[in-house]
């Protein structure tokens, strides 16, 4: 089976394996990965391959989203996620408008719902949003027909980051099932870690989280389907042993002011991923970080820029993954 667009010589050729059909796609919005199936994640990763191929061409543009209007609405600062979405949408020939809350009517007290109704009235087909309050995309989706992609909400979820992380892992290691992935840092306040925990466990990887006890989420590993089972290891050296992937999280500097940590110095001493600790992981273990990094704090500079680091590749893959998601979401809505 193949879908095909052709215009001015630009073609997007999506070869679809028999097990992967775009009809497996059920999502009108993307809030998190907790409601994704293994097949759906496989589908996203597979289509990302095709998008990577487009990105390798001299003219990185296909007409898949021609005539569609994509808007980004960021209530928080962002460099890579926002640019990445913008480029992804442009590569698919969508019309893209960017709005940031700090320069919009939000500063005049406009409610989230009114802002979204306005964007919809202006013709948005897909709205990409980042918001400091967990669940804000769920609220918005109750009021608009446009597809909503969560580009990060509070501590809750950052599904596109997790998908690009998984794509990067699979590209290097050939699989996700059975991988030992160790996530180090402030898991409690990290939307990146939550979405990765969901995605990776759905794909059959084993997740170990390593945090100081004050930065561990509450209630982990109680029985029931509310949250995946993870291994918890407070000792970084034990956590790293035999890891296939080491994912380091950014430490927000305000965590110390609220008394969760005594000092940055102590955090670096206990939890920094440095050269000697990295040797405890498997020899070819991948080093990942969602960015932006505090080099010298949660990750040693030498590790961040080592041969094992795929941090810059994560950024490149982010564009391809987001192209895949925009493509799927626009297709799902083609009424």
């Amino acid at each position, binding site marked *: 089976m193949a879908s095909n667009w052709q215009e001015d010589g630009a073609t997007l050729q999506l070869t679809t394996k028999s097990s992967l059909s775009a009809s497996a796609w059920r999502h009108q919005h993307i809030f998190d990965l907790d409601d994704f199936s293994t097949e759906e994640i496989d589908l996203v990763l597979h289509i990302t391959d095709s998008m990577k191929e487009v990105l390798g061409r001299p003219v990185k543009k296909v007409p898949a989203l021609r005539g569609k209007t994509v808007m980004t609405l960021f209530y928080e600062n962002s460099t890579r996620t926002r640019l990445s979405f913008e480029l992804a949408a442009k590569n698919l020939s969508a019309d893209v408008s960017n709005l940031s809350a700090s320069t919009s009517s939000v500063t005049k007290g406009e409610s989230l*719902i009114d802002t979204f109704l306005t964007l919809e009235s202006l013709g948005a087909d897909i709205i990409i949003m980042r918001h400091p309050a*967990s*669940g804000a995309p769920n609220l918005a989706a109750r009021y608009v027909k446009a597809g909503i992609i969560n580009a990060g909400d509070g501590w*809750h*979820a950052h599904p596109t980051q997790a998908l690009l992380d998984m794509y990067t892992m699979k590209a290097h290691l050939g699989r996700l099932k059975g991988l030992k992935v160790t996530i180090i840092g402030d898991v409690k306040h990290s939307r990146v870690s*939550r979405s990765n925990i969901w995605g990776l466990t759905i794909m059959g990887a084993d997740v170990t989280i390593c945090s100081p006890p004050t930065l561990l989420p*509450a209630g982990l590993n*109680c029985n029931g389907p509310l*949250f995946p089972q993870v291994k918890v290891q407070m000792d970084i050296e034990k956590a790293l042993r035999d890891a296939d992937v080491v994912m380091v999280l950014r430490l927000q500097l305000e965590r110390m002011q*609220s008394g969760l940590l005594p000092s940055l110095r102590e955090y670096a001493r206990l939890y920094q991923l440095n050269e000697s600790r990295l040797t405890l992981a498997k020899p070819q273990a991948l080093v990942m970080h969602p960015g932006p990094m505090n080099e010298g704090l949660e990750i040693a500079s030498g590790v961040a820029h080592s041969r094992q680091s795929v941090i810059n590749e994560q950024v490149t893959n982010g564009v391809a993954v987001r192209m895949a998601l925009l493509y799927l979401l626009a297709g799902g809505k083609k009424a």
Partner: protein
Amino acid sequence: MNSWLIQNARIIDPAQKMDNKGSLWISDGLIKWIGQAGQLPPEHDYQVIDAGDLIACPGFIDLHCHLRDPGFEDKETIASGTQAAARGGFTTLCCMPNTEPAIDNQSVVDYIKLKASTEGVVRVLPIGCITQGRKGEILAEMGELADSGVVAFSDDGNPVMNSRLMRQALDYSRAFGLPVMEHCEDKVLTDGGQINEGIISTRLGLAGIPSAAEEIMVHRNIALAELTGARLHLCHLSTAGSVELVRSAKKKGLKITSEVTPHHLTLTEDLVMGYVSNAKVNPPLRTQKDIQALLEGLKDGTIDAIATDHAPHTELEKDSEFAYAPFGISILETALGMLMGLVHSGKLDIDLLISKLTCGPASILGYKHGLTGTLVIGNQADVTLVDPNMEWVVDSRTFASKGKNTPLNGTTLKGRVRMTFYRGQRVWNL
């Protein structure tokens, strides 16, 4: 005509240990006569209500609600709040002082009493502040408040965090014989918390409120009550640990009473899944284990009363990002139906339930505001008629309350208030 014969009802009046079929005659605003089923009163000038399928009981007393008036009339007014009460079978409401201005001086008490007498359809008893402006800094003039008719002191959702000031408030209140009602929450510990702390707060990425935040303050307040000998009433217990603390304090003989809400007795934290801000309430919905302990507490007398913590908000406020939405449930009109679910599932005895809505709270208020919570002959006729088996679907658009904020829309409840009489006037008739 204001003379009614409520005929052949099941009359439940726990204060008189009464639970039998009978008839009740109310006239001139008073309970005139109670007779056995089939008997008729000595006079004949009344309208007959055939109550063969109904329970007749004293009008419910709510120790803890928010009428929002003055200051937040877009959320509720004394008119709309008392109409909601009548529909829910409540004939007495104690309203919390988190108004604007706060109920920290006589003029605000007078305003509420005036409004209640002109617009209200049930009794409104104001609760005065512990501290001026509920700021937790300087004691309110409790003597003036007591003289002007408040029934208790509370800073509502602003617990008095300063233990020295709380000691002084409890000590000072002893001069007036009124209880201090405390919302137990260590605000430093809850710091921005949104829902019960646990795997659901982790899944939703929302800051958690641990049970310890309530229990620390329950414990502190009990210690201060013991130190001062004051009358302490603990609001809306929500955790198994709090029940245990109150139980052991009562065993020591301290003058402590407590309440629980219908929602903490019937709903659990998983209701917030999907970021349902109408299930956002403080203290937060907890777990089945806590519900079990709260029910035990009701049964063994650790918990004296069921109070609603009715907290109406506008849809605009509730329809915002979960963390920005205010806490609270509009509950006066669904309280009885929710609680009857416990009766139908065999978890709570109907007589016990009615006692916790009538003579239980009445005994906390004392009797200087009138004898409420019982159907003794000669008493003011506050009477509620309940159909225990009537099934109905909650639709908050039909609420009398301005607060449409309930997580129960679309839910079927079994048990509904059919009529409410306040001082002999029928203020609700379904």
